[in-house]
């Protein structure tokens, strides 16, 4: 039987990294995710698995350390919160351009600017639509529990290596700080040098005479070369959209009204669905687990079934734009959000739902 341990979402990231054979973590302190590096430093994985953990001088440096480690075919990651993620966006763009795998955890807080240190989902547009410069996508996965935080590290690396692309675990301050029971799986060893050579033949691990040199770069001065590369990236993103969409549904089978929400908001919406169901209102919830790729098709299907959709987010309405695209004008799409670290209660969500749908 798997072991269950009570821990914070942020701690789950750290423990999962150690137990899933991650080679390196490079980070910089920022609230509300500092427990990730604190836990790693306390656990001293360099003495057990050989994992490297390093506190960098900035988020800029952290992400570029990740770039260097990923270039060597290693499983490397970092974590930060919104303002720090903004600083990392240059590096993430370079990694997308150099087709490097990595996992970046964003434990979102309120913004813009220095904002608040309380939870938010205000980085949706930044992370899902790009973030850095140029034509690229992150693969974005959104945890809603400490267990997800634990599981998504390994899943993130699986996706990152499968597609040679940065993966962002888009969490928020609630998920990061909340303590829950987490099921701990048996540990996985780190990749051997031989496995890296097989899995990442492109990696800069030292050039033997027998092969051409490996070059990790995102530079191509020739327009046609760059365009051909961008087409290749675009094809990759289309394949990801086709194959990797993940979502969960709650009470949607007979639903007449639909909520869409990700991360911590999805759990609040589950409670709101229960409250509305108790009143005889057939509400349901679709939670996108992957934000890129986004479950457009599933939303389209449900839009044909329900009277309305409401997107509930801790921001001013970001994911709702994708929900509208998915709904294809088949039903009205509404939005309710809170900002600055304020969080709606299920009662508040239910009340806003009644207002939007004109239900007394």
């Amino acid at each position, binding site marked *: 039987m798997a072991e269950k341990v009570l821990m914070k979402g942020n701690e789950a990231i750290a423990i999962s990294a150690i137990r899933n054979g991650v080679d390196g973590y490079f980070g910089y302190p920022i609230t509300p995710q500092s427990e990730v590096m604190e836990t790693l430093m306390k656990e001293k994985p360099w003495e057990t698995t050989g994992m*490297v953990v390093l506190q960098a001088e900035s988020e800029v*440096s952290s992400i570029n350390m990740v770039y*260097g*480690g990923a270039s060597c075919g*290693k499983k490397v990651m970092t974590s930060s919160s919104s303002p720090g993620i903004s600083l990392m966006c240059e590096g993430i763009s370079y990694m997308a351009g150099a087709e490097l795998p990595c996992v970046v955890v964003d434990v979102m807080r309120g913004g813009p600017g220095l904002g608040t240190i309380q939870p938010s989902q205000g980085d949706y547009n930044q992370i899902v639509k790009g973030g850095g410069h140029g034509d690229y996508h992150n693969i974005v996965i959104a945890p809603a529990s400490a267990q997800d935080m634990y599981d998504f590290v390994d899943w993130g690396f699986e996706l990152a290596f499968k597609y040679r692309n940065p993966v962002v675990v888009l969490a928020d301050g609630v998920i990061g700080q909340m303590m829950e029971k987490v099921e701990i799986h048996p540990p996985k060893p780190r990749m051997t040098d031989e496995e890296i050579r097989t899995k990442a033949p492109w990696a800069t691990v*030292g050039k033997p005479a027998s092969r051409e*040199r490996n070059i990790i770069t995102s530079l191509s001065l020739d327009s046609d070369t760059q365009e051909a590369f961008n087409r290749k990236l675009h094809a990759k993103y289309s394949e990801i959209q086709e194959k990797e969409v993940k979502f969960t549904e709650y009470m949607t089978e007979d639903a007449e009204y639909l909520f869409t929400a990700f991360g911590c908001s999805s759990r609040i919406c589950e409670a709101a669905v229960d409250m509305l169901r108790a009143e005889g209102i057939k509400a349901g919830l679709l939670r996108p687990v992957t934000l890129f790729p986004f479950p457009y098709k599933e939303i389209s299907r449900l839009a044909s079934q329900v009277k309305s959709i409401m997107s509930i987010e801790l921001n001013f309405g970001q994911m709702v734009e994708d929900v509208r695209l998915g709904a294809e004008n088949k039903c009205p799409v509404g939005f309710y959000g809170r900002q600055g670290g304020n969080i709606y209660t299920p009662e508040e969500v239910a009340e806003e739902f009644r207002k939007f749908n004109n239900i007394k």
Partner: protein
Amino acid sequence: MNIEDIRKPENIVYRKPALLTDNIMHYCPGCSHGTVHKIVAEVIGEMGIQEKTIGICPVGCSVFAYNYIDIDWQEAAHGRAPALATATKRLCPDKYVFTYQGDGDLASIGTAEIIHACSRGENIVVIFINNGIYGMTGGQMAPTTLLGMKTSTTPYGRDAKLNGFPLKITEMLAALDGTAYITRQSVHTAPAARKAKNAIRKAFEYSDRNIGLSFVEIVSTCNSGWKLSPVAANKWMEENMFKEYPLGDIKDVLK
């Protein structure tokens, strides 16, 4: 003795090193980069560490260093090469890891990365090409530009009141406990280039001894940016650059 008697393979005393590729360098005629690339290729070849060396190139003229030296390369964002090198060396401690950076890259946008890599005592080699100008973007002022020196962004000469003073970053780095070997060299004459080669070899050897970061500055020319012929640029460098950036070892913890 006639020429054909001399022109025999056994009489070759100097040739292009094997680790330099056949790609024609994109550098301007007379550019110091080519000479330093050659020296790095010679050192890696002579140490027999091609399979154990990972190079990290910057943004700037030497962004294409990976086209010329036959080893595995990573190309960093502007100024960030020491961060890449840090992770590469820590994750692959049996490798020789070096960055190759210009002054626009290392001494301006990349000051945080180089200072902290030095401060942490990363066991890497940094080769720092200081020609006092941004070459690739068209000859703008760098932090290392001399006072009075004309560039495209200091068309009347660098004025300390307006643009501040030349940054002697190499001396700054020598003050950090994490650095093992800090030296300033040039490659404009054969004796200077031979000394520079010894310095680069020493830096690579030190990087394998867990004693901290080794840093080789090469005071260089950018004859296109300086608007001088290659030979005149070398002379100008001797007369002007060396006053601000004197050659020689600055720190050697094993001495």
